[in-house]
């Protein structure tokens, strides 16, 4: 333990990648728990089940697309993202552990970024990939690729949204659930115009990329969808960073 003779160089800090990687690994470690894996395992099982079903339909490709845009993007992806996204930072706040990450010579944007990345790392393999597999089972390579893109970008947007919610609200999960079950599903299906305001809506327009697939709620072209979904994620990340920088820490 060196004596504190020399004036400490206050500028010393970890390389960005090193600290980001450490925070990312921490987020993964704290998020993975038995009950969550059980739940998400069931979800991805259901996703693959859909694929199996679509195969029996007269027009499998369209059936797969419908199933993915309805169940996959509307329920499966958002539900998984709510689970991991809101608690990535939310748990640290609730357990009063944020101090061990905040009081470090590390730029503030890094924790929210690590949270979004960790959420994506958990959600994409557990939902987007099984959905893609189910589309493959339904026998259409094009739909499979479109599904992978749509689900991944939906997960990206939802991650930004729910990480920010986790930093901001105390019972973020519950509002997230209400948002998913009610806004993304009931409202989006009933009011066609509302699709433009839902992540599932924009994500399903990416599905439209697959030839011969018409997607009933198509708010805009797929290209625009990519931009919008990424923008939502970035906005979520910025809001989370701003909140994280300005809040008092226990």
């Amino acid at each position, binding site marked *: *333990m*060196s*004596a*504190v*003779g020399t*004036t*400490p160089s*206050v*500028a*010393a*800090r*970890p*390389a960005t990648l*090193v*600290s980001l990687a*450490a*925070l990312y690994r*921490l987020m993964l*470690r*704290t998020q993975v728990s038995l009950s969550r894996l059980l739940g998400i395992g069931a979800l991805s099982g259901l996703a693959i089940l859909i694929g199996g079903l679509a195969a029996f339909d007269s027009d499998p490709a369209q059936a797969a697309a419908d199933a993915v845009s309805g169940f996959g993007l509307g329920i499966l992806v958002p539900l998984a993202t709510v689970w991991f996204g809101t608690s990535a930072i939310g748990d640290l706040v609730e*357990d*009063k*552990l944020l*101090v*061990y*990450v*905040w*009081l*470090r*010579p*590390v*730029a*503030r944007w890094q924790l929210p970024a690590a949270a979004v990345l960790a959420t994506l790392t958990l959600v994409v393999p557990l939902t987007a990939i099984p959905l893609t597999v189910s589309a493959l089972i339904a026998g259409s390579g094009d739909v499979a690729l479109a599904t992978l893109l749509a689900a991944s970008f939906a997960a990206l947007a939802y991650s930004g949204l729910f990480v920010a919610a986790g930093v901001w609200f105390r019972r973020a999960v519950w509002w997230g659930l209400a948002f998913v079950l009610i806004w993304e599903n009931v409202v989006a299906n009933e009011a066609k115009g509302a699709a433009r305001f839902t992540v599932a809506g924009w994500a399903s327009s990416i599905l439209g990329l697959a030839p011969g697939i018409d997607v009933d709620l198509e708010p805009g072209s797929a290209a625009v969808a990519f931009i919008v979904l990424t923008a939502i994620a970035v906005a979520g990340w910025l809001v989370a960073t701003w909140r994280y920088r300005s809040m*008092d*820490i*226990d």
Partner: protein
Amino acid sequence: MTEPGIVAEDVSKWFGPLVAVSDVSFDVGPGVTALLGPNGAGKSTMFRMLCGLARPSKGTVRVLGRDPRAEPWVSRQIGLMPQQESVFEALTAREFVALGATLQGLSNPDGAAASVLERVGLDPSDSRHLQAYSKGMRQRVKVAQAIVHDPAVLVLDEPLTGLDPRQRMDLVSLFKSLGDEGRCVIVSSHVLGEVERLGSRVLVMSQGRLAAAGDFHELRALMDDRPMRIRVRTDKPRELAGALVEAGTAVGVRLEGDGVLELDARDARALARALPPVARERGARLYEVHPLDADLEGVFRYVVERR
């Protein structure tokens, strides 16, 4: 390190109508300083502002000359042991301390974690998760993560609660050596007996305000308006009491019965020196002589009750 590690100028903090800290100013240089005060006096809030975790509502805090709230880089030189008991239940002690070391930019975080865990008396190769650790072990892990990056400033919020006498003794000697290395260490605690052994620089807060600052012996002497009490048991209580009052060294006497008398002295040293000769003259046998509140608890109680 020339300038003081921590400088607070008229710092205040309120949460809505509740004023937790109001106009507190002090500075803390190298060595160990104890921050004392009853629960709710604003100690923890003050500590959180010192580290930049909470923004002062008024006034400024400087650590090593910089604002800890605005510049996250200062925390490279700050080591905090928070009051709350929670730790990362899913990590092992070594992983938890290594995480801190990594985020502080140490080149060999795992090695640093292992050596600092040994220093606080924990086994670095213990593979159990922190969930299985007892309160005493958790406190020592929290100390380890606070000092792993060799910080110039150490803020320790109630590090001794929940520890038994032996564990307390070990940590107190650790803190003392950290202070002797020239670090600027500020400790809050209610286990006054132990804090006394840490060193004698003291800050006392009460009702959100600074009630006293400085060396606690000098503080004790400053408090002349409340004399020191000494209990004496002798076979001739009345005679001895009368003689001491007459000699002017005792300003107040209470007879407690079966030979016990309580003396109030303006200057404790003078009374201690005068008591034996006066007793010898009167032929009074001294069975017991016991100062009642010369220790830190007396200072604490006096300062806080004086309001």
